[in-house]
């Protein structure tokens, strides 16, 4: 045991005796470990962001629309020629369906909001029916949502997102104030809690919700509509989707042989898309990691061969003094593993410093599991690349070795 420890300590000294060379040898491992840990962290971060965003969409919500979210091949003209969604569909679906509890018809557009001298451009304006509050389980910070009556009467009232409140009414209660949306006067009746960004791209806080019918005069009646449906508790999303599909086919009067001329979108579509992206990232990351580790491993092997040759005489002396084969093997193997592990630690520390940067885009942290995986990979690379040179050292003939100059 003591012998092994001494050999390890001697290996450690030798690595540090050749700092520059050891460092250059480490580069491949550094890159490999950097890539595996950074990729792992990024994927877990992206995953978190994705799950949070999916919660915003809701996993029990169906989106009845003209177009599918992700058009796979297909004929774009087929989609294009579909009839538009109509406002009365929501009512009809609610009447016929057992599995849908709420339905909200929506029209969405961008526009500006002005309050006094301040205005915000590019606000996401969601013109929706009163049921939206239940479909999307909206959380209010203050005030209230508009009523069924206000919706039907096309009242000019608005519920504003947290970002808009923050911008237009930094030190003021917005409730009861009048703003202008696309030039039209609206009274603020409620504010929403902060929600964050969807997939890190689109802020749900920079949003204003107004009664659907009130938007006809500012958007025009023929805007692209969609219907958001909430699946009743206790029913599976898949079942509800099938039911809605049948109801829609009957509303549209489709014959059995005809294809659906509408799309029912749900979170699942994002999930499929996302897992493809994730596979892409991990595939690329894995490729880079494997390549870097291979190059790094060969680098270590090469430098260990050089080291064994340079230190042939030293090996001869050690053997003359009684070092057995396994001790010499262990010493040189330790050296390779030490180089690889230090490389791994450098790679990990670079990752740790980069995680801060990643956090600007999404919440990510380097997990313990990933650290353990990275270090294990380093150790294995060290062993694999060190074993052959170390065996060569162990098998040297003491006489030949001690005479070597």
């Amino acid at each position, binding site marked *: 045991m*003591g012998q092994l420890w*001494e050999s390890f300590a001697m290996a450690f000294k030798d690595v540090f005796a050749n700092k520059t060379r050891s460092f250059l040898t480490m580069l491949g491992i550094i890159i490999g470990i950097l890539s595996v840990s950074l990729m792992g962290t990024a994927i877990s971060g992206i995953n978190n962001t994705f799950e949070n965003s999916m919660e915003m969409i809701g996993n029990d919500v169906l989106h009845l629309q003209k177009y599918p979210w992700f058009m796979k091949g297909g004929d774009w003209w087929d989609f294009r020629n579909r009839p538009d969604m109509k406002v009365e569909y929501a009512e009809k679906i609610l009447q016929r369906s057992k599995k849908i509890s709420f339905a909200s018809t929506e029209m969405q557009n961008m526009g500006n909001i002005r309050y006094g001298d301040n205005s915000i451009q590019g606000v996401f304006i969601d013109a929706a029916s009163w049921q939206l509050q239940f479909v999307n389980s909206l959380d209010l910070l203050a005030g209230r949502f508009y009523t069924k009556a206000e919706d039907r009467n096309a009242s000019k009232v608005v519920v504003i997102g947290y970002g808009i409140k923050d911008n237009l009414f930094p030190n003021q209660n917005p409730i009861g104030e009048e703003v202008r949306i696309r030039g039209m006067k609206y009274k603020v009746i409620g504010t929403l809690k902060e929600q964050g960004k969807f997939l890190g791209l689109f802020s749900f806080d920079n949003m204003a919700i107004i009664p659907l019918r009130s938007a006809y005069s500012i958007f025009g009646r023929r805007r692209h509509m969609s219907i958001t449906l909430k699946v009743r508790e206790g029913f599976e999303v898949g079942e509800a989707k099938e039911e809605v599909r049948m109801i829609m086919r009957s509303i549209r009067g489709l014959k059995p042989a005809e294809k659906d001329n509408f799309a029912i979108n749900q979170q699942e579509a994002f999930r499929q898309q996302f897992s493809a992206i994730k596979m892409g990232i991990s595939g690329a990351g894995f490729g880079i990691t494997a390549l870097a580790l291979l190059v790094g491993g060969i680098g270590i092997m090469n430098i260990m061969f050089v080291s064994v040759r340079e230190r042939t005489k030293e090996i001869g*002396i*050690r053997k003359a*003094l*009684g*070092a*057995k084969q396994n001790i010499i093997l262990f010493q040189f193997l330790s050296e390779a593993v030490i180089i690889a592990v230090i490389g791994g630690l450098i790679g990990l520390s670079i990752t740790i410093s980069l995680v801060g940067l990643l956090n600007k885009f999404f919440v990510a942290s380097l997990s313990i599991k990933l650290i353990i995986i990275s270090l294990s990979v380093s150790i294995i690379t060290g062993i694999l690349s060190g074993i052959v040179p170390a065996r060569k050292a162990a098998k040297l003939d003491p006489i030949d070795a*001690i005479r070597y100059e």
Partner: protein
Amino acid sequence: MALLELNNIFKTYKIGSVEVHALQGLNTVIKKNEYVSIMGPSGSGKSTLMNVIGCLDTPTEGNYLLDGLTVHSNNSEEAKLDDNKLAEIRNQKIGFVFQTFNLLPRATALHNVELPLIYAGISKKARMEKAHSTLIEVGLGDRMHHKPNELSGGQRQRVAMARALVNNPSIILADEPTGNLDSKTSAEIMVLLDKLHSVGNTIILVTHEHDIAEHAHRIITLLDGKVSEDSKTKNGSKNKLINNNS
């Protein structure tokens, strides 16, 4: 009692198709606490013999007994020891002193002396104590933490001698220990070797110089890989006399 017994030892090197016969049927017996010089012309097989005795090399043919242990035998297969076993014998029974010192260049004097004890599996504390006292014994108490390139030739050879001694070997093998030293330093090294012999060590010394060889009690002369002469020196006869009287 015979410490080592060499019986009809052959060592043949093959370089391609050329065979070099370094030892050709060598016989000798060396007893405990003997002080032996080996002489002979260059290429006569002195170093080869030292390597065989020191278990750094194995003979091609012949019987070799060291301290009651069969290191090599013509008769049984099992008597041919493997690499690890030979390493253990070198560690336990042999102390080498080389012409070119053969110290680890990047290690301190202390660490160099510690090495045989490390490979003997001795604990750190015991190791340090033993290495310390041995360095003091060879007169290097104030140079323990110097590296070889910070020491003079004579000092380096003292470190090497401390290293050879530190694990209490059965034999000290010194192959031209003064070959790289001036005459004054050589004399100092020989004083040390004489002292080591006087405290009970067995010493075998290879040298080309007669006055060095005369320090020993017996001179074995090699020629063409065989013993051509084996005689006592003046020291040896004196010693014998004392032994006879007692």
